[in-house]
């Protein structure tokens, strides 16, 4: 290890020759001692390096949503905790930390958002303890992309600090949002949904990608100018979460009609939850020419053993021109259900000679089926 002692000297020589070991390019300035955070409105330092503020909104939510598709059954809205984090990087690796956490909760007619802000690393342990005070084990957490990101990151921080992680039940609004709007929007970021669906105009907002550097700039250079933009970004995210939840509830309950959404997807979702409105919705979609909706509904009937309804759908869809799916389903129905091999064979031939030549793979499958049918017919004879 004798060379190790010389490392400092070597480093100095390198610097002198302008051959610094490669680092990420960035300007370095002398750090200011005072952070000036106390000048920010409404914030209090509740623990060393941990700051808190609370912002009050009118409660945009109903008391409960009895027919909710996204919340647990009989969930009271006042037991929900909305949260979102702003972090020092994009990965969930051990070196990324959340420096700002926003938490939204209902208090009677108000929607209160608490924000916890780290003014330096040593505050983290207090932040986590504070979270543990707020995060009740029985509460339900509402987030946007929290299932794959924020919750992992928070768990990692608890583990890194030797604290126990409370298991939490999480409702991630990203998933229902994707169902409803994936086909309508170019992307399903919360910002896009706000703008195009919820009609929320954020005004000048800080791009998410710039957020980590704002914190580092504050930390290393004492710059506070852009911090407030990050705070309000986070605040808006929490408030939008509440609006989003409310909107999804109204849509799934069939109350809202003026907002665009993917009706087929909603129909599927409703059916999945065994809700009859799904049937109407899919029927309406089929009438509007969406055969996929008809296919989905027919399979639903088939699964439920409602053969007549399924057969009606297949026949109807086929009326408007050759429909491979329906013909094949009918063939299966005749073969397996009615044991009418002759009719089934006719249908298979119809596909084979149909206007759209089947792919070699499907053709093989059909020919196999045909052979079997001929065999069965011969047996019967």
């Amino acid at each position, binding site marked *: 290890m004798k060379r*190790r002692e*010389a*490392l400092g000297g070597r480093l100095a*020589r390198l610097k002198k020759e302008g*051959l610094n070991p490669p*680092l990420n390019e960035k300007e370095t300035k002398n750090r200011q001692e005072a952070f000036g955070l106390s000048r920010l409105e409404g914030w209090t330092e509740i623990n060393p390096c941990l700051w808190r503020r609370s912002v009050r909104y009118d409660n945009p939510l109903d008391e409960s949503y009895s027919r909710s598709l996204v919340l647990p059954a009989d969930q009271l809205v006042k037991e929900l905790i909305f949260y979102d984090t702003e972090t020092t*990087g994009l990965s969930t690796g*051990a*070196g990324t930390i959340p420096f700002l956490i926003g938490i939204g909760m209902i208090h009677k007619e108000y929607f209160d958002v608490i924000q916890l802000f780290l003014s*330096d690393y040593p505050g983290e342990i207090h932040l986590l303890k504070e979270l543990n005070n707020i995060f009740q084990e029985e509460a339900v957490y509402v987030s946007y992309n929290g299932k794959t990101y924020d919750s992992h990151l928070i768990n990692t921080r608890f583990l890194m600090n030797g604290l126990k992680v409370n298991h939490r039940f999480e409702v991630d609004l990203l998933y229902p949002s994707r169902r409803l709007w994936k086909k309508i929007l170019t992307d399903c970021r919360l910002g896009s949904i706000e703008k195009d669906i919820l009609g929320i105009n954020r005004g000048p907002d800080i791009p998410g990608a710039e957020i980590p550097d704002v914190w580092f700039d504050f930390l290393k250079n004492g710059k506070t100018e852009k911090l407030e933009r990050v705070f309000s970004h986070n605040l808006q995210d929490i408030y939008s979460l509440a609006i989003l939840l409310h909107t999804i509830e109204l849509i799934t309950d069939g109350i809202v009609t003026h907002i665009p959404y993917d009706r087929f997807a909603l129909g599927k979702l409703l059916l999945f939850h065994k809700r009859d409105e799904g049937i109407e919705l899919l029927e309406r979609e089929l009438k509007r020419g969406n055969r996929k909706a008809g296919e989905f509904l027919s399979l639903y009937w088939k699964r439920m053993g409602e053969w007549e309804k399924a057969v009606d759908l297949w026949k109807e869809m086929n009326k408007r021109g050759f429909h491979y799916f329906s013909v094949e389903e009918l063939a299966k129905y005749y073969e397996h259900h009615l044991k009418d091999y002759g009719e089934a064979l006719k249908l298979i031939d119809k596909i084979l000679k149909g206007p759209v030549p089947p792919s070699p793979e499907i053709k093989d499958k059909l020919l196999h089926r045909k052979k079997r049918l001929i065999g069965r017919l011969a047996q019967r004879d």
Partner: protein
Amino acid sequence: MMNSLSSIIKNLKDDKNFLSCVTRWEHIPPRIGKYAELPDDLNETIRNSLVNKGIEKLYTHQRICYETARDKRDLVVVTPTASGKTLCYNLPVLQTLMESEEARALYLFPTKALSQDQQAALNEIVLDGDLPVKICTYDGDTPGSLRISARKSGRIIITNPDMLHSGILPNHPKWIEFFKSLKYIVLDEVHTYRGVFGSHMTNLIRRIKRIAAFYGSDPVFICCSATIGNPRELTERILERETVLVDDNGSPSGEKHIILYNPPLLDPVQGIRRGIVLEAQRMALKLLKGGVKTIVFARSRIKTELISSYLNKSLANQYNENFRIKVEPYRGGYLPGERRMIEKGLRDGSISGVVSTNALELGIDIGGLDASILAGYPGSISSAWQQAGRAGRSSQLSLSMIIASSSPVDQYLTQNPEYFFGASPESGFIDPDNLYILIDHLKCAAFEIPFRKGETFGGDVEELLDYLEENGVLRFTADCWHWADRSYPSERISLRSGAEENVVIIDTTKGRHEVIGEMDSHSARELLFEEAIYIHKGDQYKVLKLDLENHLCQVEESTVNYYTDSILKTDIKVLEVDEEDSVSGLRLVSSDILVRSEVSKYKKIKFQTHENIGYGDIYLPEYEMHTRSAVLLFPENSPARIAFEKVPEELQAPVMSRFATVVRNTAPLFLLCGRGDIGVAGRVRDPHFEEPGLFLYDNYPGGIGLADGFHAQMEKVLHASLSLIESCPCREGCPSCVGPCDDRDGFSGNPKEATRFFLASWLSGITQ
């Protein structure tokens, strides 16, 4: 079949033409195995599984490994091919895993292909014996769905250093169960962790140890190495812990013939010999026709394909379908499925011949073959032994033949066989404290866990942490350095290269776009400038474009009758001298240097005659590098100086440059590195030291331990240099020894002879 191998051997012994090219025919008698009982405490299920496989006893070295590892002592076992390496680590690991349901182990293999092979081998033991041990390969190919279960319930995780570096360690909180109960870390093929890769490896191990300690575990290391000069020293440098060496191999081996073969000389001036491809094909054909299962090792992918297609063609002409001899090529770039098929075919005997790159050199199980042919020396003696070891099953006769190419190292080896057969002289060196590499890993480590004040990382690192803080990457607060940057540092750090990215060489002949190789950017300036003739594994290309900024070089096939040689001007500035020694009749100094190099012109030199047929200009920016150097100085009255002064004055400069060339040619034999890994510059009078001398420096920014390792090897390098010159049949110097003669030098006298004279009188001056 064995009869036919012995009759082929007998015929060769009677073949006068063949024998005239053989420089050594070594006959190694069979060796009897040394055995030990299965350990008493061995778990019943494991024991049954072994017995079902016909393993009722262990080799002695396997037993020693078991005891040592179970005793929680770190070890390195030196394992020649087919010595039952996997049991050395699988047995103690499985035993521990069976004793404790919590226990976990990490297996690290240098490549992905090897880890897949290991998983297959392990599954065999585990599944046969119904051992409740879940084994998971975790690498870039592992689908996301399997990753979560691997993290949660994988008892043995098989991976590679790159994945550990960028995937596992930075996400250690997701692996908490694993790290908490990590009992063993297996490092296979430890001899491959040298140079840049090895220097990174030490730092990676520092990071694992740090994370393990964070979760309260302290795993034992079980390492395996091929035969090299310093397995224990290298392992201890990587682990930074005391390590037990297990090198008394108890496995048996059959009778073996090893032939060193130097193809006939075609052009004595330039030292050109008959090609290795042709020679290898002829020999392989003879063996295959005699029904001998044969492996041919070629040095490039293209040659692999060439030789195997030639063999198949020749065989097809000779035999009909009733006499199937199947030969397959095997190399990187094949799909895993294809490779598994070939490996299986070799094991079950349906494939009788295989032509491979060094892809089959490492531990992949292909069963035993009867003969191996090395078309060229594979770059290190340990590799040569590994490849030769592919022939020979435990109790049967085998043959290995090493065919020399015209390269200096090949020529040295065939002409100095005692070097090859003697105690392994090559040693692996690393420099884990290379500032660039160390700083990169400090960033990764700080990302993983903040550094506490006073915490070490292979030594004191406070100044370096301060440096990182100064640059805004870390933040020091409450006695801890925290990662304070938005990036994910390991993502940008490659374990396989130095501080700079390699230049990728792309063959664009006829609209092709095929990557044929890589070169570090420093060497690329010397060899891949525009218009350069670049010889890649025997094929000739012309450089169309060198784009250093994007690390790309485009070449196309060419057939000109000359090669190019850039004129490199190196300016060396000595920054700091930190060690001095007096050895081998000179003054040896270690120092930090700054190399400024510039290539601005090149020569075109005609093949065969070595006439200089023209010059060209090179337009490349000057290049600067800080690195480590050994400086060989000739102070007054030292034997080296006395010998140097005996050289006529007009020949002193040419002799110094030839001395530099021959050292660059022979040093890799002892330093376990490639020719391009070191730089050498001779000085008739160095301005800093004011004496004649030679710089031998690491050709990587910051150094990789070669120059520092050179001290102990110097005397051997000098003697090897002298004997390379003496045994080379060329007249006035060729690329195989001191480098070709250049008519521009314009001096009378024979520079090769003068160099020989200088070295010989110096070395005899020491012994007197």
